[in-house]
């Protein structure tokens, strides 16, 4: 039981981490909690359904299930990356100099718009994800069962987090992102195109959330237009747990939250699963608001 719940928890944890990264990266640069981020995840799941539906009709999923999964993930990532950049341009950039609460309200507005667009175009009923294969492959590991899909989810999450880490630490864009997060005005003085860096941050964060949306959709099998809300709060909790603004913290926070939820679902009750995230959020905010890896408030001189 322990091992099984640990495996289930790690699967979810990787996904929470992917969504949490979007929150933490945007916060790191703009000090904005992008409340519309959960809806990007939801949108990603719907794009995944549409893409996989097409792939099934074309016979791709039967011929190459793994490649179809990767292709659906890629389509959702590109689409949501573009949506993320558009949201930033239309809803946040015009408010860059406004009071800090103003873009927050704008984010809630974006969230409502995205939910309603999906509800109106896709319907309000649950949507069933196309299955990648009729007989899912599973492996038995010391009494626990691991599905091939779980391995894919963990593998894709880990690969994306590793790539993001390299991007931030080793590339010119990563350096520009870190400089912008620390002091945007100074970054622009040395020639960093700050607006382009902010756009890139939204594209990357949104693409990661979209990937998470497709994978969770496949994992649970059904989605509806409202899943972004709870997923958003959970990923936000993961980001706060790790220390908001801290990229490795979001990865750690996501995995810890997923594992605790998995164990909670197993040992307490599946009904209480969602409560765990809220309890953790409240506890972290009371006991250690800077999170596990958080530093003091970023210096803004």
């Amino acid at each position: 039981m322990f091992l099984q719940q640990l495996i289930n928890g790690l699967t979810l944890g990787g996904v929470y981490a992917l969504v949490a990264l979007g929150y933490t990266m945007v916060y790191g640069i703009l000090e904005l909690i992008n409340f519309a981020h959960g809806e990007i995840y939801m949108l990603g799941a719907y794009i995944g359904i549409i893409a996989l539906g097409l792939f099934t009709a074309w016979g791709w999923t039967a011929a190459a299930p793994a490649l179809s999964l990767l292709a659906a993930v890629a389509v959702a990532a590109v689409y949501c990356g573009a949506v993320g950049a558009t949201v930033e341009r239309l809803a946040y950039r015009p408010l860059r100099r406004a009071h800090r609460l103003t873009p927050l309200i704008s984010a809630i507005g974006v969230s409502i718009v995205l939910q309603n667009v999906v509800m109106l175009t896709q319907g309000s009923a649950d949507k069933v994800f196309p299955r990648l294969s009729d007989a899912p492959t599973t492996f038995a590991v010391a009494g626990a069962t691991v599905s091939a899909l779980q391995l894919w989810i963990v593998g894709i999450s880990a690969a994306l987090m590793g790539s993001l880490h390299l991007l931030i630490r080793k590339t010119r864009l990563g350096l520009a992102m870190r400089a912008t997060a620390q002091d945007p005005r100074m970054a622009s003085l040395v020639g960093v195109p700050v607006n382009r860096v902010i756009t890139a941050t939204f594209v990357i964060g949104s693409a990661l959330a979209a990937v998470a949306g497709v994978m969770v959709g496949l994992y649970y099998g059904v989605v509806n237009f409202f899943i972004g809300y709870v997923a958003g709060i959970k990923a936000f909790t993961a980001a706060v747990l790790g220390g908001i603004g801290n990229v490795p913290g979001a990865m750690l926070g996501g995995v810890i939250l997923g594992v605790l939820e998995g164990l909670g679902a197993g040992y307490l009750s599946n009904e209480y699963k969602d409560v765990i995230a809220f309890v953790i959020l409240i506890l972290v905010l009371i006991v250690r608001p800077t999170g596990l890896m958080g530093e003091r408030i970023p210096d803004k001189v």
Partner: protein
Amino acid sequence: MLRVEGLRVSYGAVEAVKGLDLDVGAGEIVALIGANGAGKSTTLMAISGATAVSGGYIRFRGTAIEGRPASEIVRLGIAHVPEGRRIFKRLTVLENLQVGAYTRRDRREVEASLEGMFGYFPALRDRRGQQGGTLSGGEQQMLAIGRALMANPTLLLLDEPSLGLAPLMVERIFDIIRSIHRSGTTMLLVEQNARTALGVADRAYVVETGRIVLHGPASALLDDPKVRTAYLGEVIA
């Protein structure tokens, strides 16, 4: 090289710079001196594109640059060492220098600039893996100047390089500023420490409440009775 005419900059309802004119010729060191809040830093920020200009012209080597984005102005050859140094505290020394060369694509040229810069600031080479925030005040000032040099500027804007440093460190920094100048970099220097500034500059402008009230060769200003009483703290008997 640089010509500023009738520059106006406002912060909301407050006009910080009210029609300021100045010139910097190629190869010069020009100082802007004046009291706190006179508009010296604002002038530099307007030149480098860090703050919006509400009136007047700024020409750099024949190109109008007022109102252009800061990143474009760096590419044209103006680098700004801002007041308070503003190094990136959680980037390493080397990363601070790399981000200073952000606008440059040729890796070999950047590498050459890095070597040249380490020539002026050997201490930075030893500390290149350290986080910027762990450096002492003097080293942070060196890093701020080094970062600006990495853009390979023809004009260097220096804002209060002596601020908060011990007299010995001020002397060292100004020695280095002199040798950077000798290698062909033109400089516009803002200082509250008027004696140091006039000691290094060819010419100087005195700024009061957003306007130039006096200008001339640095040596002449050092002898000017008004400058001596107002900015050099001398009591005329």
